[in-house]
């Protein structure tokens, strides 16, 4: 069974990585912890589920997988509107107000989701069912999980390339390293911040969209991933992309093996490990 646990760990880690990467980019570039990040995840999940239900029998199978991107797009758009209308006014305010504003946005968005898609669960398991299973060392494993890992790998590669090699990415890193200096060099902070926020929101939406074929989209679906993303951010270090990867792997594997061995205390175990890391290294594994 160890093969399956390892793969499950990778699968959890993949979804977590997408969510916490988005959170971390926003945190690093803008210095704002977005408590509504889980709602963007939920928006991605609901949008993808809704689109899949709408087009299920009308299009070739391939497009079902493309439609998962709708979650990314909608979450990105919502992120754009949110940044332009709310977050923008918060840059110069203190931490309390920034957090409370995103908390307000969280409450607001949860009910907006309820208004648009109603209170019922949306089932969209077609992409999961259609891919079937594969045999790995004598164990049956759903191909869809492997598909999620592949997409996450591609997304991670894209972000890594983007942040490391492109001009915009380098500018974003400059802002997260030293905001004042970056302003002094004439970078357009406002625009780049919007961009970072949209990118982060989109990643959360993608994670939500990817998860929806395996579990129905429910109200409050974004709450749990948000907490795990917080743990990843705390363990990996604020604003560090490498930290997000390592933290996601750590949390993913702890969860997968914890569920397998000690299902009752899977979460406390996770906190115990996070707690030990923090006592030893208070700024997280890759924190500055």
């Amino acid at each position, binding site marked *: 069974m160890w093969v399956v646990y390892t793969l499950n760990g990778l699968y959890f880690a993949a979804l977590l990585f997408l969510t916490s990467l988005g959170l971390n980019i926003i*945190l690093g570039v803008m*210095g704002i*912890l977005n*408590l509504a990040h889980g709602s963007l995840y939920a928006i991605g999940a609901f949008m993808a589920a809704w689109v899949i239900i709408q087009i299920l029998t009308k299009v070739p199978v391939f497009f079902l997988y493309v439609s998962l991107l709708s979650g990314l797009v909608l979450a990105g758009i919502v992120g754009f509107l949110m940044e332009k209308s*709310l977050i923008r*006014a*918060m840059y110069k*305010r203190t*931490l*309390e*107000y920034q*957090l*409370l*504003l995103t*908390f*307000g*946005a*969280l*409450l*607001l*968005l*949860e*009910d*907006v989701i*309820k*208004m648009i898609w109603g209170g019922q669960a949306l089932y969209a398991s077609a992409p999961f069912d259609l891919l079937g299973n594969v045999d790995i060392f004598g164990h049956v494993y759903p191909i869809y999980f492997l598909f999620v890992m592949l997409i996450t790998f591609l997304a991670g590669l894209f972000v890594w390339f983007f942040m490391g090699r492109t001009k915009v990415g380098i500018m974003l890193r400059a802002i997260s390293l030293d905001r004042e200096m970056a302003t002094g060099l004439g970078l357009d902070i406002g625009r780049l911040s919007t961009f970072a926020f949209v990118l982060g929101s989109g990643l959360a939406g993608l994670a939500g969209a990817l998860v929806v074929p395996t579990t129905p989209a429910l109200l409050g679906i974004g*709450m749990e991933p948000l*907490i795990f993303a*917080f*743990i990843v*951010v*705390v363990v990996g270090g*604020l604003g560090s992309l490498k930290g997000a990867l390592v933290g996601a792997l750590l949390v993913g594997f702890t969860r997968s093996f914890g569920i397998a061995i000690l299902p*009752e*205390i899977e*979460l*406390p175990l996770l*906190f115990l490990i*996070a*707690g030990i890391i*923090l*006592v030893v290294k*208070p*700024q997280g594994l890759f924190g500055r």
Partner: protein
Amino acid sequence: MRLKETVKKTRWVVYVVIFIVLLFVPRFLSIFNLMLFEYGLAFAIVGLGFNLLLGYTGLLSFGHGAYFAVGAYTVGMIAKYLPEAYRLEILIPAALLFSLILSIIFGFLCVRHTKIFFSILALSLSMLLYALLFKLYHITGGSDGLRIPLPAVFGFSFKGIRRPEFLSGTYYYFLLIMFAISFIVMKGIVNSPFGKALQAIRDNEVRAELIGIRVRRYRLYAFIISGMFVGLGGALWTFVNGHVTADLSHWVFSGEIVYMTLLGGFGIFEGPIVGAILFTYLKLYAMGNTQYWMFVIGATLIVLVMLLPNGVAGAIVSLLGKLKRRKTEETAC
């Protein structure tokens, strides 16, 4: 100097008058409104404790639901497992003790950090407690929660009395006295040298350290005191609510505590009290009139952050200040 003293004196006169008015509240409020008011009073104690950390020490915790839940669950667990000890005079010290223990453990981890890191850490730790309360079904009742029967008070049992009667009689006065004690104690803490040291830390950490204040230790003390107040509020709240669930430790509940503190205004000592009572009514009003109450609460919060950053009490104070200034200007003319 003399002016300051007279201001202080009139302030205490106002407090006493308000207290006397509050003594007669059960006479002219309906039982429904009285219960709401009792929720508000319990939350006011929570707000007082929370504001020591937010307003006076400058640490924003998004996990104070944990201490609220500990206070509440102490009551629930004693009701379930130690019914012979289910007496108010035992329950309250027990709730204080357990919230003390938990806030020492969590506080030790949290105060090593400040700002966002502190907030996330406090949040995550409260979610740890949530997970434990939720998952250990056979001990804590899981998502069903625990039922809170009426407690005995100094050997006097309330068997056969219905909850509304209990709440409108003895319990209201007990709650009010607990509130008054918390108020006076917190006022003392805030004005003590310790309280001033906390404010120094809030305003400038480096400077505070240079004049010899042990920053981290003082933060831990503030964390513990605030945790105990919140635990007390949680314990008092349970008797009004009659039921506890794991949701009390969920971080969204902690967010509501932050919200009521901001609603009243965390720059002012009395702010959180005003905020707690207002929030109780606002939430009930929103829940009673629309199924989208979270939308209403969230939108109000956003408007508040944008337009009234000092809360309702802050707005009133600045308004009074403006009026006073205008008056002095007039007399000067």
